[in-house]
């Protein structure tokens, strides 16, 4: 009988970590109050910050990481994290559905094309080496893991550089993309025919279309469209199928052995599936929390946009006198829901700009997202909030530890992070924006991204195992 005997778990105030966690909460509260005293309209930005803190707490609690899910599944055939992620997906779809029905959804479906699977593949391959997906790297940074910090930096700069590829990359794009990009009639300062990523965006992605399954169902009754199309068909049913596959291919054999069963009745199978689900309890609880808060964030941001009569945070920043770093449409990246990577790309772009590289002459920064100062970049502060939230919980649970990467981990973090960054830009998001948020809002491209991520993850595990076997020669194995 397995017994969890994790000992030495004192109360919150019985150790220094508890005080540090409380100090962090106090610091964020004081800074928030200071901002509100300056201008109450900062509430829009603070919604991002505090939801980020909540996401960080849940991510650390459930150790919610797609890299762990894929790697554990393929490397050691343990489905625990994959099961948790699937349950989280199903639960999040319900809250997302409620927000959509209420009319406050800020979600936009992604255009469907080969780039989704290619992006997922590159992202999945990279994340096996970094040991964390986009959200995983954020919460691990909050636990004091400096390797994950390196991953985040690598993702940030690789995305910024990929979005701002120079003229040398033009020849890598099909000729048709340039013609198509020109037809879009974009402002000259964007130079949309110069740079692979601009050609890819204007000449390829903009020609594609996307939509949600609710749109396809189209009965006219929003409840039926959303809950049948988005929740049941897009999230629940595929999740159920995946759970059954995971049970049969990994968990079932051990379940039969432990319970000394000769043949399994339907009831036994159900008990087995339930047993598999309950081993992922923490991740599932985290998923439920993430789902509820992600839905609440969409609702809160939607309500604030209505209150301030704006469509984008850039308009509010303009009214507050902050014009620097906005796109030529006077907008900034403002998804209004849980999203990671674009804001990190903005950070990379902002730093590159600071050092003299003009990154505003492309579509990604110049037209769509801008490069606002990190201190007023709401989604970026949401990412900071995730790190802070994870730190708060890790400190209070005595799980915070400064971990310095060795040379091997640092190289994997930088190279893997760069691949994740390229994959995220190509696939129009990461495991959160391109998979989690997409699938739960009825966008089938999320499953395509996941398929790519699984293929990439499988290849990554194969390559990683080859490296491990080579490295094993250096291990002492004295038994």
């Amino acid at each position, binding site marked *: *009988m*397995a*017994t*969890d*005997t*994790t*000992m*030495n*778990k004192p109360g919150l105030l019985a150790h220094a970590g508890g005080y540090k966690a409380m100090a962090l909460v106090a610091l964020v509260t004081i800074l928030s109050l200071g901002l509100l005293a300056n201008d109450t309209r900062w509430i829009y930005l603070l919604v991002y910050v505090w939801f980020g803190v909540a996401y960080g707490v849940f991510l650390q609690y459930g*150790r919610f*990481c797609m890299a*762990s899910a894929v*790697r*554990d599944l393929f*490397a*050691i*055939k*343990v*489905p*625990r*994290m994959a099961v948790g992620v699937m349950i989280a997906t199903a639960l999040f779809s319900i809250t997302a559905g409620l927000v959509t029905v209420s009319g406050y959804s800020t979600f936009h479906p992604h255009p469907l094309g080969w780039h989704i699977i290619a992006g997922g593949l590159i992202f999945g391959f990279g994340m096996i080496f970094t*040991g964390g997906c986009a959200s995983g790297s954020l919460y691990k940074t909050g*636990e004091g893991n*400096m*390797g994950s910090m390196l991953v985040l930096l690598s993702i940030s700069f690789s995305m910024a550089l990929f979005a701002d590829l120079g003229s040398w990359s033009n020849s890598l794009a099909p000729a048709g993309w340039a013609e198509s990009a020109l037809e879009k009639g974009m402002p000259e300062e964007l130079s949309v025919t110069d740079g692979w990523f601009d050609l890819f965006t204007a000449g390829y992605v903009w020609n594609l279309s996307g939509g949600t399954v609710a749109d396809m169902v189209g009965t006219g009754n929003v409840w039926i469209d959303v809950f049948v199309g988005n929740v049941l068909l897009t999230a629940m049913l595929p999740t159920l199928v995946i759970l059954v596959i995971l049970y049969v291919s*990994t*968990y079932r*054999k*051990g*379940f039969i*052995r*432990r319970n000394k069963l000769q043949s399994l009745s339907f009831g036994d199978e159900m008990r087995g599936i339930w047993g598999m689900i309950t*081993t992922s309890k*923490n991740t599932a609880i985290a998923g439920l929390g993430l789902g509820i808060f992600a839905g609440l964030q969409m609702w809160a941001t939607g309500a604030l946009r209505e209150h301030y009569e704006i469509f984008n945070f850039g308009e509010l920043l303009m009214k507050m006198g902050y014009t620097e770093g906005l796109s030529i449409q006077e907008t900034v990246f403002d998804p209004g829901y849980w999203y990671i990577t674009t804001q990190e790309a903005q950070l990379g772009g902002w730093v590159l700009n600071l050092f003299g590289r003009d990154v505003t002459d492309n579509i990604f920064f110049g037209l769509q997202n801008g490069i606002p100062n990190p201190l007023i970049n709401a989604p970026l502060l949401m990412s900071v909030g995730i790190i802070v939230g994870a730190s708060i919980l890790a400190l209070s649970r*005595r*799980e915070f*530890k*400064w*971990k*310095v*990467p*060795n*040379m091997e*981990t*640092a190289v*994997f973090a930088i190279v893997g992070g760069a691949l994740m960054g390229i994959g995220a830009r190509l696939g129009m998001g990461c495991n959160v924006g391109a998979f989690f948020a997409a699938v739960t809002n009825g966008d089938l491209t999320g499953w395509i991204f996941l398929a790519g991520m699984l293929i990439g993850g499988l290849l990554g595990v194969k390559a990683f195992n080859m490296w*491990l076997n080579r490295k094993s020669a*250096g*291990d*002492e*194995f*004295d*038994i």
Partner: protein
Amino acid sequence: MLGKIIQGIRMFLGNLFHWKDEEAHAHRHSSVTRINESVELPGHGLVQIGCRVECESEGCPRPQLLTLKALNEVDRGVVVEVVTDNLSVVETMPSMMDIYEGVHLGTVQGKDNWCIYVRREI
């Protein structure tokens, strides 16, 4: 905290430029060794440990793979102690024992690491 950051940077640079930093060097390789020690585990009393898997500073899935390798090598009933500072390993190990032919006896949190105790069953 500042001291820890400086120590961290020192260790990182030490690894980067191969400075002879004993602490950094000591953690560069994992080890699996036969031991004969005992430990008090809640719910199990005094337990005899037959093998130790040292894998601090190692990322997943290396500690899990080394543990499986160790469980394959030891005799039935032998308890293996896995020393790690990786929380993912701590979380994964009980589930891994559900799949493989072992039992998770417990996990003890130390100051800077965790000791996980698993026993070969078959």
